[in-house]
């Protein structure tokens, strides 16, 4: 009997990952046709309701505006940050990495709340200082506008986007830039005409992925609440029935509309994958690009970084500290200083132990699951010659467009359906599978971009030298992918620790998580303890990120993981 080719493990991993994605997508599609939240009766009623809503065209335009506006802001910061971290002698790399990681750990609602306090028209601190407060929108600043929503969402998406771009930048072949330098081409022109085009798949992946994420984000929409609806509000209201059943039909059909909005961009991305070899820059003849010296531009780069830090990390952390010090939410004032105490910090600490252990377990499990499936899928998509591979990748891409509550429900339904064979329903394992699935698109975006830059000739050379495809996968492909795997794992870990919707719907009561603890405390009106727990969480996550970066050798700016 012939031995089974171990590469089948990779195909199997990809297949399981894809199956989980299909659970989520099918849950959305099937849900869009259900009329009773029990999957008994199926109709097209929800589509009729959605598509005949006279407000739909305006809602779609606002949703598109929100998506494009957010990614424009995100890329404005993420691309330079990734370049600073991966390709320059920027002095504050560890600081920037730490702050990017810290931002991932800050709950979105806190950022939104900080901006509401500062820039709301009726009592915002900045408007008050300018003597320009007004209840009917005539203030100097009015945060309740779609442009503010784009800016805030765009700013908070920067860390994930930067982490997605870093591996692609690290894998660039330095010989191309060196040739340009030798020919006397200025650095800016080299960046524009050589680096940026070679990064096209990576930038495209980030743009498409974060477009999908931006139109599905709810925290900022909920708090800023600009005039007019966006699709995610329709979904939220459909799923949060006040006295009856969740309207999975309407939420699902709105989710399908999100698919449609995302589909154009995804199709464009699939075309990129078909021309993959054009972007392969990491070959056997590759040269280490070395670090770009910033010289006199270092000050400008630092100012740019600090602007983002102040807007996105500074203000929310100051807000969190303030909220943790006062017994109920109130804007900072001299009078409020009388109420300051450390009770929130002490109270929060007393609750932390068990949720922290459970959260660590969920983080580890989600990272392992997401990474395993993502590595397998990336290999299949970028290395196998299957014609369906790009379409499988497009399916993975759609997963973030499924509203988190619908994903949770789809996995619960799957858990119930397979319970007699696999009793995962009500356990943390099912939560990890759902989380891993939602984050799979992020991982495959990061890894595909890096994998596309690795020229197949490296692996072909290994086969010619007598290595099996399995050993080539282990000995060549995986080591080359290490930076991408690290940053994807980091992002997955951070998001898994912070994710609330999935644990809230799927969690069994015996295994509380930190995110659910924060939600419980906040819902209870115990905002000081909730803010303190959030701050503890930020500290723990940043420490974990820095440790992981050190242990994996990703702390150094060079390209030691590439040949």
């Amino acid at each position, binding site marked *: 009997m012939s031995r089974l080719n171990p590469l089948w493990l990779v195909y199997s991993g990809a297949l399981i990952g894809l199956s989980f994605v299909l659970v989520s997508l099918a849950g959305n599609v099937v849900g869009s046709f259900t009329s009773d*939240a*029990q*999957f008994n009766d199926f109709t097209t009623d929800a589509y009729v309701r959605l598509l005949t809503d006279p*407000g739909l065209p305006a809602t779609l335009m606002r949703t598109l505006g929100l998506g494009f506006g957010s990614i424009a802001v995100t890329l404005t910061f993420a691309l330079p940050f990734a370049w600073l971290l991966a390709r320059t002698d920027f002095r504050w790399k560890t600081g920037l990495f730490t702050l990017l990681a810290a931002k991932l750990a800050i709950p979105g609602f806190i950022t939104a*709340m900080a901006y*509401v306090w500062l820039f709301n028209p*009726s*009592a*915002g601190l900045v408007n008050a200082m300018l003597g320009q407060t007004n*209840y*009917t*929108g005539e203030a100097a600043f009015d945060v309740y506008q779609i442009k503010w929503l784009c800016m805030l969402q765009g700013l908070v998406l920067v860390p994930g986007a930067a982490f997605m771009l870093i591996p692609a930048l690290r894998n660039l072949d330095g010989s191309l830039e060196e040739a340009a330098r030798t020919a006397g081409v200025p650095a800016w022109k080299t960046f524009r005409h050589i680096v940026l085009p070679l990064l096209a798949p990576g930038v495209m992946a980030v743009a498409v992925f974060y477009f999908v994420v931006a139109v599905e984000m*709810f925290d900022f*929409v*909920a*708090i800023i*609440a600009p*005039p007019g*609806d966006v699709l995610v*509000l329709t979904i939220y*209201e459909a*799923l*949060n*029935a*006040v*006295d*009856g*059943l*969740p309207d999975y039909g309407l939420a699902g059909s709105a989710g399908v509309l999100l698919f449609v909005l995302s589909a154009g961009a995804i199709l464009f991305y699939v075309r990129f994958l078909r021309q993959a070899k054009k972007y392969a820059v990491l070959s056997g003849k590759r040269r280490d690009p070395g670090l770009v010296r910033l010289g006199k531009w270092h000050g400008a780069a630092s100012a740019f970084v600090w602007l983002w830090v102040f807007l996105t990390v500074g203000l929310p952390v100051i807000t969190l500290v303030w909220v943790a010090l006062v*017994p*109920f*939410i*109130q*804007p900072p004032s001299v009078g409020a200083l009388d*109420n300051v105490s450390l009770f929130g910090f002490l109270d929060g600490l*007393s*609750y932390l132990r068990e949720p922290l252990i459970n959260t660590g377990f969920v983080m580890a499990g989600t990272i392992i699951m997401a990474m395993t499936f993502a590595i397998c899928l990336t290999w299949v998509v970028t290395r196998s010659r299957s014609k369906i591979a790009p379409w499988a990748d497009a399916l993975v891409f759609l997963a973030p467009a499924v509203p988190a*509550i619908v994903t949770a*429900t789809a996995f*619960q*339904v799957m858990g*119930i*359906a397979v*319970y007699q064979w696999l009793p995962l329903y*009500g356990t943390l394992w099912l939560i990890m599978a759902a989380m891993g699935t939602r984050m799979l698109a992020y991982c495959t975006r990061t890894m595909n971009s890096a994998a596309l830059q690795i020229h197949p000739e490296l692996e072909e050379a290994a086969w010619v030298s007598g290595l099996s495809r399995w050993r080539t996968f282990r000995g060549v492909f995986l080591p080359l992918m290490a930076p991408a795997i690290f940053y994807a794992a980091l992002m997955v870990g951070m998001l898994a620790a912070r994710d609330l919707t999935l644990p809230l*719907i799927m*969690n*069994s*009561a*015996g295994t*509380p998580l930190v995110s*659910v*603890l924060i*939600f*419980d405390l906040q*819902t*209870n*009106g*115990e*905002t000081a303890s909730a803010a303190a727990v959030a701050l503890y969480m930020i500290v723990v996550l940043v420490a974990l990120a820095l440790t992981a970066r050190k242990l994996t050798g990703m702390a150094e700016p060079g390209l030691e993981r590439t040949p």
Partner: protein
Amino acid sequence: MKIIAAIFIVCLPTLVLAQAESLPPAVQALIPQAEAEGELQVFGATLNPRQVRAFSQSFNDYYDMDIDLTMSGGLHSAKASEVALAHRAGVPTGIDVFWTGLIAAMAKTGALMEIDWINTYGADPSLAMGPWGLRTHDGHQSMVTVNTGRITAAEAPKTYFDLLDPKWRGRIVMPRSPYPWMAMSYALGEQETVDLLQTIIAKQEPKLLARYADIRARVLSGEFPVAIGTDIFSLQKRGAPVVHPDIDLLVLSSSGAFVLEDAAHPAAAKLWALWAVSPEGQATLEEARSYSLAETPGTALNTYAEGRRVVHVPFDWRLENHDRLSEKFLTILESGS
């Protein structure tokens, strides 16, 4: 003082024993069964771990038992739907008591245990919620809240129709949810409530937010002096500058304890529901979340209800009219977003 404390400690077991003996025989019979079950899972209100310990302590002390009580919260409508699905598939839900006001999906699929709380366990007939549940507290999400730092008691609205005064233009924050208006339509009349909401939306430019916690935060911070649809009794205890003004009408929608048909710990579940409506249980609910029945003496809600016209929205009426009214009021709310 020490002597009094010593006497109290010595007498406590006797008092507990005496209390247990004063319970109806059917309830007493549940105690050994519950002890054999050993644990209990309640899904409902979000509580912090200290509050869960307080619930556990009071519940166990009340029956002189030692049962491991776990309580969790979350999105009720999604959870109820999931429980119904699991029940239909014969998969254990892992929940014993669903503590909520939203039971439509579970009732339809037979996921709730029918219990004769009145005849079997001696509960007050006014506490029955259909053939399944026991009313544990009255919700008051239609209430108005004002920030005392921004407006005086004299300026505050005295009726819901005072909210139409032009002085509140741009100063009201309220949920995008139709819930407060559905309850109010039972008390004020459907057309009157539709007119009221339409006028508020058209003329007062209220800020509409999706989540109740955000509404609380905005009125607390003083950004908006008036909020509709949130209760602040527990925040008042902490000295927050917010009150429910002296409005003539109090509209209440009830929540209760529902034992699931597949409860792994049915005896403990029944005991929990009966404890929740006892004076000890009500004191614990009040302390934790300012939850209580309007008729429980001394609670924040009871004190506020005194001298006002109190309207309880009937449970069956809510189930019957939900879909129609929800759509009606949501359409009006969306016109203002």
